[in-house]
């Protein structure tokens, strides 16, 4: 099997002429917790539906576990190894917790009864309770249980923590990290909650207007990105042509703010070469990287 669990290349999808995905390239390493970030309408759910075979791509390719998802049969086969939490968090309202577990179990030969029991207890889910009588948080936890206990090698979670209170959020995030580490499960989750992504993800991709605008290991991103703050003695007469790596440049009077994604030392050298310029550099968080990319795009 490839080291990549999910790989998409040039993925395109339009709805009534409106592009939702515009050449999306995604590479999700095996065993990673991959945060898929973007504003509402950026293309996150469309991507997830394409991965699950609910939509068909207009162009590009999808590989999951090295299998090209080229038809319904391939998508159906691959779903045996995927746990899924949909954005709507809806289950069958005429079933109880126990019934939906009993319903789901036979579809997955690798069903993990030990994980089922563990999360029934950890999430305090009452087996006899009807699904409509569960709180939104409990329903999210039940969906997570159903996804994990499938014995999946990949969890695809669409806004899994949406609607959870802070305590439940912490609990769910902790369990996701635990299950990923203990079972070697790859977790691909979409979110627009930067704090939770930063808390558990080791890889991220920021999608905007249907394209990945930033994608890398989170630690590498944080190590690579720097905010440069440059103050000149006198405002430069002409705009400075900053070198490679200056992603976002904002100038106000005598000061320039640069978001640098690489070649930080070269950019600092370039600034210092300007007479009377002082340069400071600051580490950058995921929020700042996200805001800079989705704002400009």
């Amino acid at each position, binding site marked *: 099997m490839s080291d990549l669990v999910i790989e998409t290349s040039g993925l395109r999808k339009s709805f009534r002429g409106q592009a939702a995905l515009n050449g999306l390239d995604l590479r999700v390493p095996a065993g990673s917790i991959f945060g898929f970030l973007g504003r509402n309408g950026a293309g996150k759910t469309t991507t997830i539906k394409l991965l699950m075979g*609910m939509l068909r791509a207009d162009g590009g390719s999808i590989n999951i576990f090295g299998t090209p998802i080229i038809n319904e*049969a391939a998508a159906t086969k691959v*779903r*045996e190894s995927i746990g899924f939490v*949909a954005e709507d968090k*809806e289950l069958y*309202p*005429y079933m109880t917790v126990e019934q939906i577990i009993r319903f789901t179990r036979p579809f997955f030969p690798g069903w993990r009864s030990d994980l089922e029991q563990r999360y029934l207890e950890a999430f305090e889910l009452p087996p006899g309770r009807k699904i409509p009588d569960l709180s939104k948080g409990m329903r999210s936890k039940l969906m997570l249980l159903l996804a994990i206990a499938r014995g999946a090698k990949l969890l695809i979670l669409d806004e899994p923590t949406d609607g959870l209170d802070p305590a439940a959020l912490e609990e769910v995030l902790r369990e996701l990290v635990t299950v990923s580490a203990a079972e070697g499960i790859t977790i691909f989750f979409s979110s627009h909650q930067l704090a939770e992504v930063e808390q558990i993800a080791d890889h991220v991709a920021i999608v905007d207007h249907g394209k990945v605008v930033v994608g890398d290991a989170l630690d590498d991103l944080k190590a690579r990105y720097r905010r440069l703050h440059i103050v000149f003695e006198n405002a430069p007469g002409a705009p400075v042509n900053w070198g490679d790596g200056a992603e976002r440049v904002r100038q106000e009077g005598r000061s320039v703010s640069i978001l640098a994604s690489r070649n930080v030392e070269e950019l600092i050298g370039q600034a210092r070469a300007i007479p009377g310029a002082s340069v400071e550099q600051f580490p950058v968080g995921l929020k700042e990287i996200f805001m800079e990319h989705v704002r400009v795009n």
Partner: protein
Amino acid sequence: MLWMKAWLETRWRLLYVLGLPLAGLALRWTAGVHSAEDARKLVAWLSFFAIFSPIYLAGAGIRTQSGLQATKGIHGSMYYTLSMPVSRLRLLSIRTACGFLETAAVDAIVLSSAWLCIPAVRMLAAVDLLQLILAAIVCTACFFFLSVLLATFLTESWQIWGSLLVVALIWQAISHASIPASANVFQFAADASPLVTHTLPWPAMTISVAASIILFLVSWRVVQVREY
């Protein structure tokens, strides 16, 4: 498990579809059915329900079982259904089979109840009644599969009203055409009834089966190409 899900989705509706003609039967019973002619009229009247029960039963849960429009509400999430490692053909087939069996059961239970409860109905030949049950199930199959097709792309209420409208249009069209009663899918409880002819309306049954197969294949195609 998909059978269990289909049953849980349709059981209350089945009860309703079953309850209406049985309530009607009880009313007619108390009013008195004395002659063989009365019994034939009663059975024809009960058979009339056979046209509507498939329309009603086809819609219940078809959408979610095959992963169609419903995103929430009484049928729950289609996304959960579609996340299963199950082909859309299997989802559609099981749900359709469950609905069809329920429809057949409704026809059989209602007409058998009339035979069991009303002495005048027992004056009719049992073999004729059995033939009527079979004719009712087969002749109305095309209405069931029409409803299945509409359920693949219409919401539930539109599917029911749409089915009724299309059935009414077909009935109008057929009644203006000079089609023999034995080839008319609406006449299984009237002129072509086995209670009258003492034989099965084979042409109508063949037409219904052929139409049902075509409608199911179109439904399958719709479910395959639809995006959710």
